[in-house]
């Protein structure tokens, strides 16, 4: 992209030898990745270009035609009737675990329904549902170690729920009230939790993908520097639309070159707001890109929670092998709900198409069919569960709605580690204007009222 002088002529002095600081972890590097220090010979039978060491010469002019490739297969464990396809391998969950996963998925879908409605009534400013993708988030989270570090896009509430984010935690964030751990700063559904090792969501798409690569590298080094630290991986979720961002490319490439223990999970749900995948890419989805980066890749039926779990479990152990490596998993799904509460998806897709997906196949009904086939569940139990969960969600909702707004200090604190002199001057000015124009500002609902600002002014007065 740019001309960088000096670099080429100085490169010959490179320090190219492998590090001796790997603590004994043997790194397996494929031949085509060791593209360095190759001298050409006049009689070479094989390609010796450093950029593709393993390539052979051919005298046939033959373009690689992606269209002629067979599309990458979609892995599944059970079919849409809830029947396990390979009964010998079966599923990796006990009946209790399968029931718990089902209950969590239903809980998420009920929270989504009620919060979507709450937004429609104007009681929340914004909401985004996970409908159709509950299996991906809940299934993935259930197959990871709680210590694994997760980066989300925004349609992965199930990850939080599965890891132990409570209904109260969700509601406090949605209302941005005084108990919100985001301190009232973020839009609804931008959750985060240090205890659960999930980084706070930002609205900027795909920016979290290189973060996951860097975090995975940090986890790898921390384990190397101190083997007593448990081996961990980083996991990153993003949609197929976000995968068009430059950050996706940058992240997978750097993850591969640095061999980081990370799983990149793409939720391919067919739409990025109104844009269908046919306007998003022309290759075989996102999975086909993995090979180009030298990353092991799998495509999974995202409506099959057993397939999701098995894929993630296997990817996790691969990610930690040989000193670490990244993996790409494309989870196929259909975005059943609107993109967000600010979107009416029937402006760009047929209502019948959505209804079809809702009825024909989704992760919740598929697991329910499995449970029913195994006599673990029935209509009565389902009705009771749904009614109990509805009550739970509504009571958490009411609790959160009653909590006051966060302190005004949170508008300024945390930008830098310490409040700056400039900020103190601005806080004083704001405080002054609020006091002189009391009718113009409603500070009553905020914890401590205008006095919430005073804490930040203490100690450094007059400077």
């Amino acid at each position, binding site marked *: *992209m*740019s001309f*960088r*002088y*000096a*670099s080429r002529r*100085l*490169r010959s*002095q490179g*320090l190219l030898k*492998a*590090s*001796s*600081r*790997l603590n004994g972890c043997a790194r397996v590097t494929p031949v085509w990745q060791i593209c360095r220090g190759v001298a050409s010979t006049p009689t070479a039978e094989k390609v010796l270009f450093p950029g593709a060491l393993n390539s052979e010469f051919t005298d046939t002019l033959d373009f690689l035609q992606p269209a002629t490739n067979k599309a990458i297969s979609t892995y599944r464990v059970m079919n849409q009737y809830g029947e396990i396809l390979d009964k010998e391998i079966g599923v990796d969950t006990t009946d209790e675990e399968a029931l718990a996963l089902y209950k969590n998925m239903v809980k998420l879908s009920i929270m989504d329904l009620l919060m979507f409605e709450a937004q429609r009534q104007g009681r929340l400013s914004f909401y985004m549902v996970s409908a159709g993708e509950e299996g991906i988030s809940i299934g993935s989270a259930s197959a990871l170690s709680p210590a694994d*570090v997760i*980066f989300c896009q925004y349609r992965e509430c199930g990850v939080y729920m599965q890891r132990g984010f409570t209904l109260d935690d969700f509601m406090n964030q949605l209302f941005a009230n005084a108990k919100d*751990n*985001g*301190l009232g*700063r*973020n839009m609804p559904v931008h959750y*985060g*939790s*240090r205890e659960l090792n999930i*980084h*706070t969501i*930002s609205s*900027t798409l795909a*920016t979290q993908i*290189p*973060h*996951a*690569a*860097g*975090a995975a*590298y*940090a*986890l790898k*080094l*921390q384990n190397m*520097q101190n083997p007593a630290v448990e081996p961990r991986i*980083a996991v990153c979720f993003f949609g197929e639309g976000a995968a068009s961002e*430059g*950050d996706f*490319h*940058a*992240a997978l*490439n*750097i993850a591969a*070159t*640095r061999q980081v223990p990370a799983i990149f999970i793409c939720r391919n749900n067919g739409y990025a707001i109104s844009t269908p995948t046919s306007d998003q890419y022309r290759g075989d989805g996102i999975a086909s890109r993995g090979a180009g980066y030298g990353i092991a890749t799998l495509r999974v039926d995202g409506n099959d929670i057993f397939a999701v779990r098995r894929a993630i479990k296997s990817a996790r152990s691969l990610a930690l092998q040989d000193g670490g490596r990244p993996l790409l998993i494309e989870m196929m799904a259909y975005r059943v709900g609107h993109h967000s509460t600010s979107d009416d998806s029937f402006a760009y897709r047929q209502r019948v198409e959505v209804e079809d997906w809702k009825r024909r196949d989704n992760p919740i009904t598929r697991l329910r069919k499995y449970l029913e086939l195994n006599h673990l569940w029935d209509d009565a139990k389902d009705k009771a569960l749904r009614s109990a969960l509805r009550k739970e969600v509504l009571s958490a909702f009411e609790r959160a709605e009653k909590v006051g707004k966060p302190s005004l200090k*949170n508008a300024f604190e*945390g*930008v*830098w*580690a310490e409040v*700056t*002199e*400039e900020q103190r001057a601005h806080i004083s000015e704001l405080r002054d204007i609020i006091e002189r124009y009391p009718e113009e500002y409603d500070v009553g609902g905020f914890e401590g009222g205008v006095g919430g600002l005073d804490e930040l002014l203490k100690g450094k007065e007059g400077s």
Partner: protein
Amino acid sequence: MTSKTPPMRILSRLLRPQPSTKHYSTTAPNARLNGTVEYATTPILHHTSKSALSNPELPPHIRTGQTKRINLYTAVNEALRHALQSDERVLVFGEDIQFGGVFRCTMNLAADFGTERVFNTPLSEQGLVGFAIGAAAEGMKPVAEIQFADYVFPAFDQIHNEAAKYRFRSGATGVHCGGLVVRMPSGSVGHGALYHTQSPESLFTHTPGLRVVIPRSPTQAKGLLLASIASPDPVIFMEPKILYRAAVEQVPIEPFTLPLDRAEILKPGTDLTIISYGTPLYTCAAAIAKAEQDFGCSVELIDLRTIYPWDRETVLGSVRKTGRAVVVHESMMNAGVGAEVAASIQEKAFLRLEAPVKRVAGWATHTGLMFEQFVIPDVARVYDAIKQTIDY
């Protein structure tokens, strides 16, 4: 050498500079003000060990210690070396880092600390800065390098929307990427044209959550870089690349830090205050010497050092005393750092001002290869700004 290759003699004759060859940046033959900067004698640099150790900002054990003469890239290298040595969380990476960097700032670090901690990244600024943010958010202290400040823009989103907002948006979870430092060579070199010349600091001083630091000398580079790595906030560290080899001075051998929230009065004066940072300080020092001689005035020179958050008190204290101010920087005048400094002076020292605050900055254009000397502030422009402001 094979027989097919033209003999070296012919090649060198072809390439030999002819007397009529035009150099990129030259000064007019009779120039009295504009000339090459005399780095060997400039008062900006510490030419003796005694002067280097007289800096009251240095801790006592450093002030009684040893110094050695090094240039700015070596000072950066020594700071990185110390950081890598003293904290295993420190990582150094970027494009072409491993062999020593295109400006030699990372020489020998990969060999001494291993390629797990000092390594090349793919050629992607958004990728390597995003990677650094993720590593910092998981407790590491990455020092990422952007090869030229001109190429930081692909990483602009990561720096502005992610690094700067990470702590704020994480709220009570307390997660942040404060361990992050993004180093980048910046500023003019005489022949860098459009994409090896820029000083984009004002684009980052408009971002809450970042610290923007520009050192003027090897001592400052070492102390400020170590302070930046230790800082709990993400830091944009811009290194004036023309000074990498040119600025040589006595620098304390032991590691030390310098404050990230204080400007420094480089030269006291009573009639006018010049506020600048980085390379233009050398231009200012030369202009001040001539102006004081010619006009019998006394000029105070202030190095901002930390461009954001910046030290208003030192600047305002000086201007309240002198009543006149000139701000000098390389990047374009419009919405540049000078605009912020001038506006703050106008706001807080209005009654003490005896002349309008003058800005000497890059003109509203790009830096075309052959035109650099007309675009980047030079001694004549600073000299004239002093004259106009004193005469107002």
